[in-house]
């Protein structure tokens, strides 16, 4: 999923003031990279969870809802919001509709912001859910 999102976002925001980095948003010198590199879009590693949806009495056939979660983060200057910020947010949100993302019955994106000093941290949480059967 991370690779798919990176490919989509790299194409979507080409020609804007923002860029997509292949780097993971690890902590460098005590702070996440995105706090040091403004206007760079960071895509984190996929997180996967499984929740039983339908339990059955026998050893096969249990239906499980598997959710792949990925977090995308971008930081901008909060004092002067970049002119393309709103467009960027919409472009990143639309990544859930990338035709390359197949096999999932539910796709959603949650956007949240918080302030870190003079920085506006915008976080996108993508959730992709599909049903799998334990055979």
């Amino acid at each position: 999923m991370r690779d798919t999102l990176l490919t989509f976002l790299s194409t979507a925001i080409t020609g804007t003031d923002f860029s997509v980095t292949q780097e993971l948003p690890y902590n460098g010198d005590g702070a996440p990279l995105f706090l040091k590199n403004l206007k760079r879009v960071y895509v984190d590693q996929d997180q996967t969870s499984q929740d039983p949806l339908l339990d059955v009495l026998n050893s096969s056939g249990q239906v499980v809802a598997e959710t792949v979660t990925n977090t995308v983060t971008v930081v901008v200057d909060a004092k002067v919001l970049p002119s393309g910020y709103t467009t960027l947010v919409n472009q990143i949100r639309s990544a859930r509709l990338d035709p390359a993302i197949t096999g999932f019955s539910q796709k959603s994106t949650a956007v949240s912001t918080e302030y870190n000093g003079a920085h506006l941290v915008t976080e996108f949480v993508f959730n992709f859910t599909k049903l799998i059967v334990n055979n």
Partner: protein
Amino acid sequence: MAYIYPAPGVTGVELTLTLTSGRDTPLAGTIEVLALQDVTVNAANDVFTWTQLDETAKLQVATTSTNSLSMNLVLDQDIFFGTGTDAFELLGIFGLSKDKELVNFSLYLGDTSTGVTGKTLTGKGYVTGLAPTVSADAPVWVSPITITVTGEYTVA
């Protein structure tokens, strides 16, 4: 104490339901009904009740029993609509209901909590009560299923 303990998902310990043809000349094949969510064994005696002038309470006597197995089933295409080459297996659960086929059922209740092999209920009946349903929140077909029993259970 030895509780009946059909550990879900443990092969050889779990509850199983097997169906075969109940005809005088049986159709070939066996259907093992997998993906059961729950099972209820109904054995309800009818009761004849009367009153007497010399009794302060009603008197009752048990008469005949109405027996059935009630379950909920996650639909597997092969099991529900039939597969294979044997006539009985080709019917599937849906065909057994549609064609009003008499079936022999064998319900293994599961091992006991002490690890001893458990009991099996057998009998004859008809598949009925199918009502497959699906929703966007749970996009997997699930159906109730009842085997209405003709005659008595046998416990072995």
